[in-house]
């Protein structure tokens, strides 16, 4: 396992609460660049919340409190004066359910770049090809770029959503159970594209099963009820967990 000298993202003592309940308690975690970091554990563990904190999507939620820091390239992303829109362009997000925006495949992929001010047609075509290709979708949709995105199959839609995030050339890609609604073949395609992508991107993924966690992880962090129980390079966490609760979960005794 190659360990980068400076982690891409540093999560430092983050505690986060919704109206009534704490979702995350004192979480500290370093996320290395150019690797796949897996956040896993039973539902309600705070994985999705943490993911949404990394690109400040939870800013949209009312009535929440947060303490601690999240650093991206050693800069506090919650510091005053940070542009949230710039942050979200650097940190892309793919959601659990494929959610194409209304409109064509092309419009979906170019949505982000257009908002960022892209006008040039040649550049747009370039982005379109590169992103769809990276998401392993180009071959399947190259003849239907102007068809409605909602006409694609579920698996294609999810890869479209990945392409849509990639179109902004983010540095970090966050994926929240990106294969939860997909069949095994589509799942394999998505996972395969992740392996390709990690050369260029820092990937943080909430997998939809322990098996998937074990398949894709370079690093893994186990969450239980808002707490980070332990984090390790992949091999160790799944073969020799240090904490009893991790072992119980990994071996299927609860969850």
């Amino acid at each position, binding site marked *: 396992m190659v360990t980068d000298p400076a982690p891409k993202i540093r999560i430092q003592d983050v505690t986060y609460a919704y109206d009534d309940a704490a979702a995350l308690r004192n979480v500290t975690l370093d996320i290395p660049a150019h690797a796949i970091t897996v956040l896993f554990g039973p539902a309600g563990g705070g994985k999705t919340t943490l993911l949404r904190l990394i*690109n400040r*999507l939870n800013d*949209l939620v*009312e009535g929440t409190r947060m303490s601690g820091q999240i650093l991206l390239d050693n800069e506090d992303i919650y510091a005053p004066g940070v542009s949230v*829109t*710039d942050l*979200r*362009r650097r940190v*892309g*997000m793919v*959601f659990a*359910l494929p*959610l194409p*925006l*209304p409109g064509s495949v092309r419009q979906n992929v170019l*949505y*982000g770049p257009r*908002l*960022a001010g892209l006008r040039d047609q040649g550049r747009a075509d370039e982005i379109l090809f590169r992103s769809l290709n990276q998401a392993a979708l180009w071959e399947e949709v190259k003849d239907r770029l102007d068809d*409605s995105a*909602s006409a694609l199959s579920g698996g294609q839609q999810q890869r479209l959503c990945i392409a*849509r*995030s990639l179109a*902004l050339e983010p540095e970090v890609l966050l994926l929240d159970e990106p294969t939860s609604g997909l069949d095994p073949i589509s799942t394999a395609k998505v996972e395969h594209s992740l392996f390709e992508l990690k050369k260029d991107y820092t990937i943080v993924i909430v997998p939809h099963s322990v098996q998937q966690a074990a398949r894709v992880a370079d690093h893994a962090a186990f969450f239980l009820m808002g707490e980070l129980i332990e984090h390790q390079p992949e091999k160790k966490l799944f073969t020799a967990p240090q904490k009893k609760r991790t072992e119980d979960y990994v071996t299927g005794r609860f969850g």
Partner: protein
Amino acid sequence: MKRVLMQRVGFVLLGLLALVVVLPILLVIGAIVARGAQAINWEFLTAMPRNGMKEGGILPALVGTLLLTLGTAVAAIPVGIGGAIYLSEYARDTWLTRAIRLAIINLAGIPSVVYGLFGLGLFVLFLQFGTSILAGSLTLAIMTMPIIISAAEEALRSVPTEFRTVSASLGGTRWQGVRNIVLPQALPGIITGVILGLLRAAGETAPILFTVAAFFLPRLPQSPLDQTMALPYHLYVISTQVPGMPADVQYGTALVLLALVLSLNLIASVIRSYFRRRREW
């Protein structure tokens, strides 16, 4: 079984009561259509009234109503949609937001004749617009606004939250998400609401009694500061204020007003059902 029999009788009774609601509606429309249709011809729609309004046409009233509705639309649509966007996309759940909602509910409940008084006090006298299309349109616009806000807010809220989240996650600002995704998706619902609001304005009499309406003015208005005749007020005038009015003219006028309003109603529901079938979520 006695209980089953009771239920059956009960259901029939409910159906009959529903019939009591519906039949008079058909009766009103049927009566006005049947008798009004005889009066309507090209001249009736395009000529000036003559001989104390007993002959000729209703052109100035028709044009007046169209102008008033247009004026109302220009003033009420931006404010109404803007207000709806604020409530649905920007407002957080604070006392201020609740005060706004309360204000809207109350605006919707203020009697139309009170709007008339207000329009007289503010637009006609205080701002010195005089009795004019401008004063009337603004009065009607404020009356129409709560209808547009409520309908538009509902349409905006029915657009799934996830679209906003996706737009934000791709580096979109809140307004960019609203403009590019939410607003286009909510547009059919908003248009429906706008039409329903405007048809209400087109049919109202009380708010224009003291702010625009001319009893008898057989010419077309030249500027927004002109008075004008208007269909609803004209119908009121010829059915209560002018003795010896031929029933044909009355029914004809009623039919034109009714047709105008009901066709707007029809357009609204066609738009609604067409887009409801077509939308992708």
